[in-house]
């Protein structure tokens, strides 16, 4: 171990050039090699693969990263105080007449939860053996047909436990909408508490109600998971 000196490798010009050469690679060589070895309908070359991921995958990854890493409360505030003010006047007026707080909360919470749900769905899709998609194609389904009739029904079944988990999460996060003026359960409890000065009792009521509805959602989710489970799945 005493002879271990990484800098001796990295700082030596010829070794540095060799490493950089290896990192950079030659797309043309790599493409030819992959084209010769891979004829199963996958990405044929490094170039195509990188261009493919650059569009849809990276856009969705950015969307998911934003919604997972920014607090939900901040997202609600951004929608209510930020994006709302950028909307056209007519739309602002319409929203103000139709309970803008609730509508924007639904949009903010829905978009945020879609990021979590999409990861659940992605894991559900990736859990399906590749042979299923190939079999659907062999039966004459196109991409949309194979997704609709073969892949998605199985993916949703695979993802049900995670979807239920995140649905409970959404139910609990709905209490954050109080911050932008939605008069939901936590808001009502806060009102009761400020009228009666019985803090412990008021929040105990909220705790019991949230717990009861969360357990109800979990029970429904468990029933759905049992009812639609894939035969043979553990």
């Amino acid at each position: 171990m005493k002879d271990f000196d990484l800098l001796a490798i990295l700082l030596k010009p010829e070794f540095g050039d060799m490493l950089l050469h290896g990192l950079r690679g030659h797309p043309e060589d790599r493409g030819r090699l992959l084209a010769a070895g891979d004829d199963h309908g996958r990405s044929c070359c490094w170039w195509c693969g990188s261009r493919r991921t650059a569009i849809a995958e990276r856009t969705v990854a950015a969307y998911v990263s934003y919604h997972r890493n920014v607090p939900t409360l901040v997202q609600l505030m951004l929608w209510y105080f930020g994006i709302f003010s950028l909307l056209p006047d007519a739309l602002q007026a319409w929203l103000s007449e139709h309970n803008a707080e609730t509508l924007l909360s639904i949009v903010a919470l829905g978009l945020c939860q879609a990021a979590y749900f999409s990861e659940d769905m992605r894991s559900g899709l990736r859990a399906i053996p590749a042979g299923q998609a190939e079999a659907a194609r062999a039966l004459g389904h196109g991409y949309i047909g194979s997704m609709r009739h073969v892949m998605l029904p199985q993916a949703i079944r695979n993802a049900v436990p995670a979807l239920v988990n995140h649905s409970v999460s959404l139910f609990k996060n709905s209490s954050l909408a109080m911050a932008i003026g939605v008069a939901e359960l936590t808001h009502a409890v806060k009102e009761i508490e400020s009228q009666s000065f019985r803090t412990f009792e008021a929040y105990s009521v909220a705790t019991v109600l949230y717990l009861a509805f969360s357990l109800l959602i979990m029970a429904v989710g468990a029933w759905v998971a049992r009812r639609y489970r894939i035969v043979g799945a553990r």
Partner: protein
Amino acid sequence: MFSIFEILRDNWLLLLVGQYPNGPLGGIVATLILSVLGIVLAFPLSVLLALARLSPWTPAALCPPRCWSTSCAACRC
């Protein structure tokens, strides 16, 4: 302990629907509406996002200028 039941007895309508019909709909009904509509919005969007993330589709305009295989499913070029 009895205070909890008193609070429920005195404020059950506020807990259920908030100030409605004299004000906006609130309480547990508003919470459930937020949750259900949030899920209704999130689920179809999540399916599209998941498919977009795994989809092999690439717009033709973004196809690379040269491809080395005739069976490339990634760019269809």
